[in-house]
Each structure stands twice: as C-alpha cells, then as structure tokens.
C-alpha cells in the first residue's frame, strides 16, 4: 500500500490566450469612455511567446471631454502575464523618458500617445524594451478610480510617507495604506514630493497594480466576481470586435496570476535637460535587458 496521502495539492492554470483573440480596434475610432483596449499590430519577425500576454497599461491624463487616445500617457506600465506559470511582471516606464518616436523625432515617451495614439505609443515602448505589447489598454483617471472603487478599494504597501499640496495635501503615511477611488489615482500620480521623482512615481503605480491584484485575488472566488467585473468593464470599455468571451478569458488570466511570481521593475535613467525641460534619459541597455529577461516567461530581475 502506498503511504497515506495527506498533503493538499493545488493547481491553477489557463490555456494560452493569444490564439483565441482577434481584437481589431482602429485608431480612428471615436473618443472612448473610461477604458480603451486596442489590439497592437505587431511588426513582423518579433519573437513572441504565445503563453505570455503583454499589455501596455496607460493612464491617460485626459480631462473630461478630451480624447484619452490623443492625450499624454501619465502612467506607463508594460505588464506581462504568463498564462501557463501564473507569473506576471510589470516594467515601469518613467513618463518623462526621452526616446525616439517614429515619425516625430525624439520626445517624451508619453507624447507618442498624443502624436499617434495607442499604436504609436505601443511601438515606441516596444522599441525601447524590445518587447511589443499584444494590447494597449488606456484608462482615464476616472476609469482607474472607478475600477478601484468597484473592487472595494485596495491596500498599498507604501515605503515612505509623502504628500502633495494640490493632489493630496493630507498625504499618505508609510506602511500599509487603504486607498479607494481617486485616492488610488492620486497615489500613482504624485511626483514632485517623491525623492526619486518620476522613478518613484512609476514604482508607486506598480504598488497600485499590486494592490489591485491582491484585491481581485481576495475576491476571485466570490460567486460571480469575475463575471460581474467583466460586465462592469464592458459597460465602460471602448472596443470594436472584442467579444465578451475574450474579455472573460483575459479577466480569468488576471485572476490566475500567482502573487509569489510577480516581479516589478522601473526602468532606470538619468535626469537630463533638453530645451530647458527636465527629462529622463533612459538607460536603454537596461531597457533591453529587462525586455530580454521577461520576454519569454514574464519574470524579471531588476
């Protein structure tokens, strides 16, 4: 007889996603609402692991009645999810990174959205990292705030106390901080009072992402939670040709990420001055290393 079986075993995985998706959202579509999901048209010959889904998440600084797809990206996070292993990574791109933008010349990376919409932004970030996104997801401030509210708020593990006299004068204390709605947005927007400026802001945005992940994980087993989440997103999502079933699969992939396999890095760089404006000169060698490191399996060492 075999030894008595005592341990509890668990497995949770998803089949690949990319082959099942065919999203087509032209750049010329009308101004969206809170979220826009765009299928990125990859360039030929790019080595893509079908098990890893790459989504460039963009926080748009568009004000009400402005087109978020032709605004400036305030937050840029290249998120990779490995549907077979549950690993996930996020590479934060400082908003002020000075990079070449095809057809435009050199400019801040976030200007690519303004000049050429999600496709040009995806291409610009893709050229920097050597990893092109499969999708570009653009969310407005209110979109992110509503998302956080809809999941009941999040907890961020804040490494330092900071405040901003305009955005959040009361400030955020160090340690675990509960934030909800627009507070979560403010947590990821404040830059001036952070010692590392744009770099620390990008890291804070990753803390927000981790908080969202944790909250979704906490509630994923609630009856209908994923279904309700997708339904809610569909009400505010601007897409064309994206089926609810495809979004359902993406949502389940998100909910399957293993917290022990989440890695986040912010692209390093130096502060520079171009034309009198303070910019970040990104470390392009590090960018390529991050891309090479994470491309196949969505894991990363900073």
């Amino acid at each position, binding site marked *: 007889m075999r030894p008595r079986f*005592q341990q509890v075993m668990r497995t949770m*995985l998803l089949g690949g996603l990319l082959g099942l998706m065919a999203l087509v959202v032209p750049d010329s579509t009308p101004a969206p609402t809170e979220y826009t999901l765009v299928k990125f048209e990859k360039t030929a010959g790019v080595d893509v692991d079908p098990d890893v889904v790459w989504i460039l998440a963009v926080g748009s600084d568009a004000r009400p009645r402005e087109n978020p797809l032709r605004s400036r990206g305030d937050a840029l996070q290249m998120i990779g999810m490995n549907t077979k292993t549950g690993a996930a990574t996020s590479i934060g791109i400082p908003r002020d990174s000075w990079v070449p933008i095809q057809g435009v010349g050199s400019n801040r990376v976030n200007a690519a959205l303004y000049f050429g919409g999600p496709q040009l932004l995806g291409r610009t970030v893709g050229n920097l990292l050597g990893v092109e996104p499969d999708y570009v997801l653009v969310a407005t401030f209110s979109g992110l705030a509503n998302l956080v509210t809809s999941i009941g708020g999040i907890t961020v593990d804040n490494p330092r106390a900071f405040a901003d006299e305009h955005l959040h004068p009361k400030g955020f204390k160090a340690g675990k901080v509960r934030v909800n709605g627009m507070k979560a947005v403010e947590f990821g927007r404040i830059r001036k009072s952070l010692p590392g400026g744009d770099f620390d802001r990008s890291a804070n945005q990753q803390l927000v992402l981790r908080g*969202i992940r944790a909250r*979704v*994980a906490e509630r994923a*087993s*609630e*009856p209908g939670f994923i279904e309700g989440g997708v339904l809610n997103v569909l009400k505010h999502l601007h897409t064309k040709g994206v089926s609810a079933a495809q979004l359902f699969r993406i949502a389940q992939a998100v909910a399957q990420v293993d917290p022990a396999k989440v890695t986040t890095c912010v692209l390093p760089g130096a502060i520079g001055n171009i034309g009198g404006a303070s910019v970040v000169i990104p470390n392009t060698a590090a960018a390529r290393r991050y891309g090479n490191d994470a491309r196949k399996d969505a894991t990363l060492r900073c």
Partner: protein
Amino acid sequence: MLRNRHSTGVPGVNRRVAHDVRTTPWAALLLTLVLALAGCSGGDADKSESGGPAGETASEPIATDAQLGAVKGRLTDTAAAEVLAQVTEVVDRWFDNAYAGDYPREKFDTAFADFTKDARGLAVQQAAILSNTEVGADLEAVEITQRVVRVDVLAPKGKVAGATVRFRLGVAMSGGVERTDRVTGRLMLTPVAGGWQVFGFDVLRGEEGS
C-alpha cells in the same frame, strides 16, 4: 433557483464499493490570484453549498447537485436552464472520465476531452490532481460520494459569454489506496460551437478531513 440533477451516466460506477456515503461540511476554499479588472457585487449567488445528497446507498450512482449561481447580465429562464444543463454535462464528463469509472485502470485519455488544447496540455501535467491517473492502476474501485456544481454565468445583453464552475467532488478510493479525497475548485469555460470548453482551472485536492 434552477437545479439540475444529472446521473453520472457511467454504468457500473460505484457499485463495487463498500464505503458509506459521507457528507462533510464545506471547507472554505481559498482560491485565488491577481490583478486588474473591474469588480462587482456578486451578491446574488447561491451560497448554500449544502453538499451532496445524503442518504444515497453505495450501490446507486450519485447524482450531480447542479445549480445556477450568480448570473451577470440578462438571461431568460430558458437560456439559463440550457446553460446550466450544458455546462454541467461538461463537468460531469470530466468527473466521470477523470475520477469515476471502472478500476483498476491506467487509461485516462478522455479525462480532458472538453478542455481546450492548451488547457488539456496543462491538465495532463497536473493529472495527479485533476484525475486519478496516479493511483488508477492500484485501485479496485472508486465511489463518488459527492458531486456539487454551481455555475456562475456571464451574459452581457443576453448573450452567454463565459461561465465559472465552482465544484466539490468526493472521491472514495479502495484497493491499493484506501482514502477519500475531496476535490474542489473552479473551472473556467467559454461557449464554443456545439457546447462549452474548459480553458482554465483552479483545483485543490486533498484527503477528506486533512
């Protein structure tokens, strides 16, 4: 609340087993993981999770206690009943081909027939959890002591787009291995032509009471 009771559909299952049918409290399951996507209340789900029908004799195949859980979107009663029946059929096939059936046996090649190709590949790698592959050759019989299925449905604008199955299965094994396992978790499915396919899973298996 819609309810379906499905027989196992596998003749001979459970008929050679001497175990008593046991019902145990539903141990809270910590399912999980990650990131973004918007939320919901999820408050309309059935939370009774009352367990499988008690009092069945060991000689009778146990029926699946299948109920509709949370429905997000609009769905007519007829459509809801159809979804419940179709999804339960898929889950029942997995239960039967992966855990029930005649023993001893070594072949479990139909266990994941309703999984997508990728999900099937992953399931095969985790076959010790998702089937009786590891112990099948040593067993003399298996009795399914509990089959509980709750189906949450996504149906925006009345069109069914996906479903999450929350399930609980009791597997009493006898022969070279004598123990009763509890298999719990979730299956994720999307509709395909002619039915439904499993594209993801989150499954926990352990000995009952452990």
